[in-house]
């Protein structure tokens, strides 16, 4: 047709638009790591990278005391017992504390679990540093045994004045089905 514009011109636009489509599809997936970075930076949703914090070198601020509560849950469909040794501790910002969590596998089979942390208020997650935590790794537990799992943490003295209570929640998820039978069979009862 006489008025058909020159082809390359169309192609150029189409190519750019298709590139945009591909980029936006990739962007959809890129939102996953972006979201994580965003959550880490802002404490959004009380999620935080469960990385190991550096050992505590902060000065202790004895002028303030913050109540740290522990909430433990096991996901439904999982029969483990999972409790903190204490329900809450009072700490000064900058002070390092160790809290033990007890896990019990009442079933007749070896199991592996993963604890997923969450902090409320979300903002507090920015100031909660874990030096050592069972939640960094999966927890194997032999049939019918129990174990004490330590968690060592301190609150950054920079923590905002208006935060008086920090709740740290762990939800235990069953990871057994992701394990090979050999790996499961190799789980030994812990020395304790």
């Amino acid at each position: 047709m006489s008025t058909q514009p020159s082809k390359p011109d169309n192609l150029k636009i189409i190519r750019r638009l298709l590139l945009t489509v591909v980029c936006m599809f990739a962007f959809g997936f890129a939102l996953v790591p972006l979201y994580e970075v965003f959550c880490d930076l802002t404490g959004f949703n009380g999620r935080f990278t469960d990385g190991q914090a550096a050992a505590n070198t902060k000065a202790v601020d004895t002028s303030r005391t913050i109540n740290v509560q522990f909430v433990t849950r096991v996901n439904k469909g999982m029969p483990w017992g999972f409790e903190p040794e204490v329900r809450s501790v009072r700490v000064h910002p900058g002070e390092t504390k160790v809290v033990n969590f007890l896990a019990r596998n009442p079933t007749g089979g070896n199991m592996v679990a993963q604890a997923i942390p969450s902090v409320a208020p979300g903002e507090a997650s920015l100031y909660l540093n874990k030096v050592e935590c069972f939640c960094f790794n999966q927890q194997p537990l032999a049939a019918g045994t129990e174990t004490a799992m330590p968690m060592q943490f301190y609150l950054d003295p920079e923590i905002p004045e208006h935060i008086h209570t920090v709740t740290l929640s762990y939800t235990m998820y069953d990871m057994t089905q992701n394990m090979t039978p050999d790996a499961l069979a190799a789980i030994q009862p812990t020395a304790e």
Partner: protein
Amino acid sequence: MSTVVGEMDHHDHHHHAPSGITRWLFTTNHKDIGSLYLWFSFIMFLVGGAMAMVIRAELFQPGLQLVEPHFFNQMTTVHGLIMVFGAVMPAFTGLANWMIPMMIGAPDMALPRMNNWSFWILPFAFAILLASLFMEGGGPAFGWTFYAPLSTTYSSDSTALFVFSVHIMGISSIMGAINVIVTIMNMRAPGMTYMKMPLFVWTWFITAFLLIAVMPVLAGAVTMVLTDKYFGTSFFDAAGGGDPVMFQHIFWFFGHPEVYIMILPSFGIVSAIIPAFSRKQLFGYASMVYATAAIAGLSFLVWAHHMFTTGMPVFAELFFMYCTMLISVPTGVKVFNWVATMWRGSITFEPPMMFALAFVILFTIGGFSGLMLAITPVDFQYHDTYFVVAHFHYVLVSGAIFSIMAAAYYWLPKWTGHMYDMGLAKLHFWASLISVNVLFFPMHFAGLAGMPRRIPDYSIQFADINQIVSIGGFAFGLSQLIFLWLVIKCVRGGEKAPAKPWEGAEGLEWTVPSPAPYHTFDTPPEVK
């Protein structure tokens, strides 16, 4: 003018339209494809409407009467999906196909073969979606928003079909959008500068960019749902380090622009019709264009207002609340411009104008409830109640659908070459207007009084309201059959329509005869 027509007749002799089913299967003609889209969307409108009738029949009285809750959830889910992706969006694409080339003086869409595909994959998408309802375990039952993990770990196996069909819908929309953009950029008649384009073309141009930007994100979201359910990934599974709330962020990043995709072309339609029947030029053309662009831009910054209750830090809630409130400024500008267009005009009330005026009022009411919903502290009370259902049905049914009806009444003579039955059209209008308000207005009260959405049964305090709503629903559903009858009648015959049946209408589409010849503007018109 006469030479242009002669030229087209001449062409018609060389390009005979094939007849029968192959004409429709293999057509690359924008008018044929436009018609296919419009008929398809109307069929989907009736199918989705039938599901709404099931929902309203179950909710007619408290207690479970007709369907069990699992099926009820499938109905709400598939009703939503069909109305959004099967009725409203294809109807707009159909209008774009028919009207954009004729409005900008182009002989066809820029990419006619792709145009054919983008339509013909759609029926397959919806056949798959509807077929999933008959699978063991039923079709998708997690709401059209398919929040994880209800749509992943806890869904039935039809989820794979749902994902596949959404992918096809997305591909279709993206192809349609590419076509619109290339057509508008490259096929405008000489002299048709961007700032001379009719607003319908402008709003569709912006809508097409929104589609390109967000449909791939939806594709990403459904893909993640698929891999989470079947391939062991944990994007949204807390057990594997994922986060179900992230699903909502990704979904609404698509979802909010999506709601503007469903309303911007309406703005274009109304901006064509109100000046035509007020016999007065559109007030503030340039500000209309900028307002549309502003709405589109802001739509990327407000997604989390759908998620205030998910537990966000205060600063995020405030940010999304302010951005959302801000959207009412450009939207308000549009409404004020329409009123100013009517002001001191010479108004007549033909069916397109009636629907356009109802659109302005009812859409504005939907806008008011939208503004109320934007206020985070009160949104905690409104969220996930019938107040929200009332809000988005006001903007989508008495907004988007009414504008599509207005467009159909405006351009039907151009499409069919016949005038339609004015009496029937007015009956359709009044029946729709009254029933749509009986249907959706009381929902505001149900929501404020505390009735959650997506429930198959409710406490007795909501019984009266639901009965009224259901009656309105049945009446609205039946009223649409009047429209079907009217269109069939108009296609089959009627008073011969002149090239320009509306006295005040402006635009190139009215310079060609009615019905528009199979090929128009083979020789580009001169636009001054």
